[in-house]
């Protein structure tokens, strides 16, 4: 079954998937109209296939928690896949692209490593890493690129430490993970990058088999139910996911707070607001900018629309997180006092981000210490000259020149 069968009968007027932003912090404007007028809309994806776009918070949650939808394996990048290209099976260990029971089997081996308690125990170590990088920044020549100096190294060091990947190898895997997230990378480039990352972790798995240490990869080796290929896949996925996501939330979060001085002042006046502020930044910025794709495993009805088996449904997290039904008041305004309401930044359903507690710990430690340490922190270039990551699957900034 593929998602390329002609669906013109049920999809008279497919619109292109909205991708163009008019404000660096806001999702494309079109989403607002779609939520009001056409919340489940026929859409033409950049890869030439057709499907449905879901934009309301409630519908996004419904799709992502509905077992009639499977994880989609067709990449969301813009480069055209010739229509009819068969969807390949997920690579070993890529549990993000699997359904139950395979998905459950692999995910359960990892959940114990990412519990709320375990991640809180990690907080002092994260704070230490943050402080070291702030020291280094303080003595560096200004302006400093916050991404290179701070936002990327922190999650990178932490995930390497957790997994048991030598941080010295970062140049390689940071380049590979960035290729995998580039929208204009060809299918082949992405595959090459993925293979290189897998090979790297595979070698580590072999080394840890001989000499286990205290980290997640060694734990998986000792647990013994995954093949070496699966462990390599799981390790590569965690390494990739642990990198650019949190790095971009830290950098874009900083830019966003600097652009909202009232919010920043509230946080500086009351540090107890940080947990709430982290949730609000996650909601407001939702860096999985093109949403999550699912595929209908059977013919089904969704709010009166007939969706044929094999069709792709794109659940827009950015749009759902700006839905006034769920976020009363002005959802297009950052408000660190907003009462927590389930946002979609980590997805929803059985695939919801396994590293979310780690991300929370890292964001809080990094953002609060940064703004504390540099009370006069500001952008070193006009905001409209900051290079935004419109061209990446994970949104954010390519660079953030700052001074103080």
């Amino acid at each position, binding site marked *: 079954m593929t998602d390329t069968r002609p669906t013109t009968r049920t999809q008279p007027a497919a619109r292109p998937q909205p991708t163009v932003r008019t404000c660096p912090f806001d999702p494309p404007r079109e989403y607002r109209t779609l939520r009001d007028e056409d919340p489940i809309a026929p859409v033409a994806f950049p890869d030439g296939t057709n499907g449905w776009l879901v934009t309301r918070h409630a519908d996004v949650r419904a799709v*992502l*928690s509905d077992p009639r939808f499977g994880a989609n394996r067709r990449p969301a990048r813009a480069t055209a896949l010739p229509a009819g290209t068969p969807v390949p099976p997920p690579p070993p260990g890529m549990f993000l692209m699997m359904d139950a029971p395979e998905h459950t089997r692999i*995910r*359960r081996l*990892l*959940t*114990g*490593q*990412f*519990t*709320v*308690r375990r991640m809180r125990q990690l907080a002092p170590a994260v704070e230490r890493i943050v402080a070291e990088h702030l020291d280094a920044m303080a003595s560096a020549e200004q302006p400093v690129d916050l991404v290179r100096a701070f936002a990327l190294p922190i999650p990178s060091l932490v995930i390497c430490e957790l997994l048991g990947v030598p941080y010295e190898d970062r140049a390689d895997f940071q380049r590979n993970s960035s290729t995998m997230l580039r929208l204009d990378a060809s299918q082949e480039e992405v595959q090459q990058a993925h293979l290189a990352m897998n090979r790297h972790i595979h070698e580590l798995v072999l080394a840890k088999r001989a000499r286990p240490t205290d980290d997640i990869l060694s734990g998986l080796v000792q647990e013994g139910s995954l093949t070496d290929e699966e462990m390599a896949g799981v390790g590569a996925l965690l390494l990739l996911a642990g990198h650019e996501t949190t790095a971009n939330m830290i950098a874009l979060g900083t830019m966003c707070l600097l652009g909202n001085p009232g919010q920043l002042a509230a946080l500086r006046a009351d540090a107890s607001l940080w947990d709430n502020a982290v949730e609000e930044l996650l909601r407001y910025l939702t860096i999985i900018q093109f949403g999550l794709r699912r595929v209908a495993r059977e013919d089904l009805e969704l709010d009166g629309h007939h969706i044929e088996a094999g069709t792709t449904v794109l659940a827009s997290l950015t749009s759902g997180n700006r839905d006034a039904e769920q976020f009363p008041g002005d959802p297009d305004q950052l408000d660190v006092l907003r009462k*927590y309401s*389930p946002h979609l930044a*980590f*997805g*929803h*359903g*059985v*695939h*919801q*981000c*396994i590293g*979310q*507690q780690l991300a929370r710990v890292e964001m809080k430690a990094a953002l609060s210490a940064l703004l504390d340490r540099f009370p006069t922190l500001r952008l070193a270039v006009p905001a409209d000259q900051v290079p935004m990551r419109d061209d990446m699957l994970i949104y954010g900034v390519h660079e953030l020149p700052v001074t103080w």
Partner: protein
Amino acid sequence: MKVIIDEDKCVGAGQCVLAAEEVFDQREDDGIVVLLDAVPSEELHSSVEDAAARCPALAIEVLK
């Protein structure tokens, strides 16, 4: 209020612990939800409802 959890559905995301630490915990070895208090007192009701709403796997049921 009575709380029922479905361990088989739980995906270990920890949202319930964030929402209501007094009522939910996670098992050390596999991160699966542990119910600390099946009949939480009145003042915990809203955070328990919050936990049920946050749970991505619909593993928490609240009976009233």
